[in-house]
């Protein structure tokens, strides 16, 4: 548009052309004309110059007013509205399902607002629609801006609330990226959301993004739904507390309830339902949950059949007190087993009294009573090779000096197929062998054995386990003091374990995690204590490395039943569920089924019972391994997976993100100041507000007024100058 400034040349050209176009008069009284011209020449030239400059300036200003910088803020219909390229970010996280007093969900209102935003655009505009929660649901969005606004309407009409949590940053980032690639005059982003605080968890990033592009992109936040969050209660946790899930035994499930309301909740009833049953297997009434607090309660159930089961914890008649459905229940898939077999390899069986054998207390902890569902076999290092490991769920190496290559190979096969290995140190252990062979070469151990800490003969000096801040799923229940405590155990001597990256490049060795730590000492290098138990995935199995002995030689952990039994059971349960870790997913997480290396072309299918929908899965390669992957886990609920040609059906559960349960709204002051906040109601005149902003500051109008004033001045001066003098 700045080419318009070339119009400045117009008066000059007209001026020059005019000088070529004149009347000719033959004249006698030249003397007097000459005299008159001489008297007026200076003034006439000045006037001419003044008028010329005025006209040039006038056209230059007019061109400037019509050029882009001014157009950007001009929006009257007089000049015709400039086209808009807009991205509508439609929040479809599950909190949008919340219904207001008018029985309309926030999402219904959001859809209406989105349509209105599109309708408010001048014809010829382009629009994208992004369905956004914690990700952009590309399949149901229009990514590349379209001119067919009716298509945008259709996408909005079809849009459904997902079971995702909100985090608007990815969507805003995407919207900015889309608009940056467009050569449009006016770029706009409409973020249509309920204003839930969790959506703005990355508000700093969002603000930065909007601020960086504020010259170019105008952002509107259209807030829909209730201004004040209604009471919301959620079941945020469901966990098998007992660790192992044998059939025909009462199993303890820990259910965590959160109260996001402003008042304390009283007499809430929570039920536990097995296999999608109608009547609860167990029920509990929670007398009180304080405002903003959580409460974990135990419920019990028993499985009668071996195999996959679904466990659902849900509120009793939640519709009476809760308006958000998605978080009123929690789903878990578990694999019930008949028995759990464990092989103990004892490296110290020379004593005549079996109570002095290295594995004595371990065996007692695992199978405290006869005919227990945990079956324990004990063997010596020498006999270990003859055992068929396949029938065991786990193998424990207690103070075993060293292993033969055959034994290592057998362990590797065992792990590859999903077994669990527990490794205990002791005075017989050949530390160098373990470090070189098992850690370095085969990548089996999570950590090398380090220096010994403490003296076993000293009773007064000991180390305790950490008393809080349990991060590993195995120890996480102890964060709740009702569950019990681990910090009564005294450890006199241990080998230092370190969480350090191993330089082995064993493909099957997985990441290392700390299960349990010692309490942090005052002079500790970091605030965390030294690791007491570490684990690492190996193949489909998992290896647990203890820092102290299986017997009571270095620690009294083995005889401290309230601690050792649940820890070991949870470890075993963890090993057992190792093949099932992918069975309990969060919304949006992919379901992965690893394929055997010799079956890389195996296919499978996932059935979504709630949607009566079947999805075919083909093998793909992920991190160098063949897997079947199912990504479309956008809705909560139970899913069924089956390999082609196999009878067995695996269940997996998809659970919404619990963070979304907290309906607290973000404060206006925390929203990006560069964005325009509009509290959208059905009667909001969005068009007017948006257009007002499109008009912006009236500085183009000022230019036009100046131009008008100059036109008036020009006319006046031209008139005045042409008067005879």
């Amino acid at each position: 548009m700045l080419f318009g400034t070339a119009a400045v040349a117009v008066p000059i050209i007209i001026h020059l052309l005019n000088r070529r176009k004149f009347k000719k008069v033959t004249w006698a009284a030249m003397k007097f004309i000459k005299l008159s011209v001489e008297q007026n020449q200076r003034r006439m030239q000045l006037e001419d110059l003044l008028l010329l400059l005025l006209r040039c300036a006038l056209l230059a200003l007019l061109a400037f007013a019509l050029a882009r910088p001014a157009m950007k803020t001009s929006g009257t219909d007089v000049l015709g509205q400039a086209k808009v390229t807009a991205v509508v970010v439609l929040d479809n996280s599950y909190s949008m399902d919340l219904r207001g007093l008018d029985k309309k969900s926030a999402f219904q209102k959001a859809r209406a607002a989105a349509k209105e935003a599109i309708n408010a655009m001048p014809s010829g505009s382009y629009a994208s629609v992004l369905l956004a929660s914690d990700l952009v649901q590309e399949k149901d969005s229009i990514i590349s801006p379209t001119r067919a606004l009716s298509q945008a309407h259709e996408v909005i009409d079809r849009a459904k609330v997902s079971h995702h949590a909100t985090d608007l940053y990815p969507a805003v980032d995407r919207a900015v990226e889309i608009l940056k690639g467009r050569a449009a005059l006016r770029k706009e982003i409409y973020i249509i959301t309920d204003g839930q605080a969790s959506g703005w968890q990355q508000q700093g990033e969002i603000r930065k993004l909007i601020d960086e592009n504020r010259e170019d992109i105008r952002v509107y936040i259209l807030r829909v739904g209730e201004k004040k969050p209604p009471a919301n209660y959620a079941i945020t946790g469901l966990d098998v507390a007992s660790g192992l899930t044998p059939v025909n035994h009462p199993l303890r499930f820990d259910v965590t309830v959160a109260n996001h309301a402003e008042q304390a909740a009283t007499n809430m009833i929570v039920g536990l339902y097995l296999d999608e049953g109608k009547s609860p297997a167990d029920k509990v009434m929670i007398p009180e949950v304080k405002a903003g607090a959580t409460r974990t309660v135990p419920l019990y159930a028993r499985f009668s059949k071996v195999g996959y089961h679904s466990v659902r914890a849900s509120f009793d008649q939640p519709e009476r007190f809760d308006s958000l459905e998605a978080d009123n229940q929690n789903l878990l898939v578990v694999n019930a087993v008949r028995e759990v077999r464990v092989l103990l390899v004892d490296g110290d069986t020379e004593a005549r009294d079996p109570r002095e054998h290295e594995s004595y207390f371990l065996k007692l902890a695992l199978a405290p009573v006869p005919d227990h569902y945990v079956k324990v076999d004990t063997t010596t290092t020498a006999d270990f090779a003859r055992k068929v490991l396949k029938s065991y769920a786990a193998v424990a190496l207690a103070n075993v000096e060293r292993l033969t290559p055959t034994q290592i190979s057998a362990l590797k096969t065992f792990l590859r197929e999903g077994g669990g290995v527990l490794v205990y140190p002791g005075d017989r252990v050949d530390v160098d062998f373990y470090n070189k062979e098992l850690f370095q070469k085969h990548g089996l151990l999570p950590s090398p054995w380090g220096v010994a800490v403490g003296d076993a003969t000293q009773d007064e000096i000991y180390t305790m386990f950490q008393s809080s801040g349990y991060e590993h799923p195995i120890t996480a229940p102890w964060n709740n003091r009702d569950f019990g405590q681990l910090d009564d155990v005294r450890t006199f001597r241990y080998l230092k374990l370190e969480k350090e990256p191993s330089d082995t490049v064993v493909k099957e060795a997985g990441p290392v995690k700390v299960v349990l730590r010692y309490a942090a000492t005052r002079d500790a290098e970091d605030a965390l204590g030294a690791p007491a138990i570490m684990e690492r995935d190996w193949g489909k199995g998992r290896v647990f490395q203890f820092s102290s002995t299986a017997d009571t030689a270095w620690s009294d952990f083995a005889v401290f039943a309230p601690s050792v039994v649940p820890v070991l059971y949870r470890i075993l349960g963890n090993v057992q569920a190792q093949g099932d870790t992918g069975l309990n997913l969060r919304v949006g997480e992919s379901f992965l089924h690893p394929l055997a290396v010799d079956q890389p072309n195996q296919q499978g299918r996932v059935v979504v019972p709630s949607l009566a929908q079947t999805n075919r899965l083909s093998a793909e390669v992920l991190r160098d391994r063949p897997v079947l992957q199912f990504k479309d886990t956008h809705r909560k609920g139970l899913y069924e997976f089956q390999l082609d040609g196999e009878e067995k059906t695996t269940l997996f559960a998809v659970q919404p993100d619990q963070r979304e349960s907290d309906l607290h709204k973000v404060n206006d002051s925390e929203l990006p100041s560069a964005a325009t906040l509009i509290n959208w109601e059905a009667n909001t005149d969005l068009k007017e507000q948006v257009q007002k902003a499109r008009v912006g500051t009236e500085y183009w109008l000022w230019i036009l007024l100046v131009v008008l004033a100059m036109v008036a001045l020009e006319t006046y001066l031209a008139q005045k100058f042409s008067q005879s003098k």
Partner: protein
Amino acid sequence: MDVEQAADLLDPEAIARADALGLHARYVVEGYMAGEHKSPYRGFAIEFAQHREYSPGDDVRHIDWKVNGRTDRLFIKQYEQETNYVANILLDGSESMTYGSGQHTKIQYGKMIAAVLSYLILHQRDAVALGVFDEEMKDYAPRSNNRATLHTLMARLAAFEGDQATDIAGNLHDMALQTRRKGIFVLISDFFDEEEAVMEGIQHLRFGGHEVIVFHTLDPFELEFPFNGLVEFDGLENIPKILTRPAEIRRTYQREIESFQRRIREGCEKNGVHYVRVDTSKPLASVLSDYLSFRLRTAKGKQH
């Protein structure tokens, strides 16, 4: 009587040949005479010469009643008009006189003035000498009181076409030197020349004892300057072109041309010269009759 003779001399055919000049002259004079019972020439060249005894046929108006009262005889006053007075009509024929915005150019108008005056003067038996000049005397008809020369004068006037620059003063000096006998000089010009030199020329004539009458002939456009837009003025008499917007300098121009006229008029009055401003858009008859009646009044005044 006079009128009929004039009509004979200025017959329409002769006039047609003479660029319709004579017709104008005849029309003017006839119109004038038709309106007035007194002959216009009465006030023109009047210089008392002697008394003569009345004989029948003489104009009774010329009887000197004072002498009759004293002597009881009839004498008439005789004037020296036939022999003593010569009217020298000098017409500026320079190129600047060829300008004309309307029906007539200034020179055409000037020719008409010259023709009419010649007609009148010849008809009162005075002598007329007619000269047309620019830088020099271009066409000079020596004095004659023969009425028959009128036609020749008309033809010569009509034939003249100006295309030269002017030198009024030089011509006046020449005339002053050449004309010994006192007479009347009629100068018809736009005076677009050196004003002071022109005045000196006029003074020279006055020193020679001549009576001088100036007909300052200007076109109405030259007075009003009514042009608009961008105009290129192409100067007559080899003056460079000027491109300007006349509307913007009109007032200055009018001021200048007025002061020019005023200077000429004042210069004339100072030297006892009759100044007549002639606007070529005005009818010639009214211009001349106005002047002639004025002249009669002043001549009467002189007699008393």
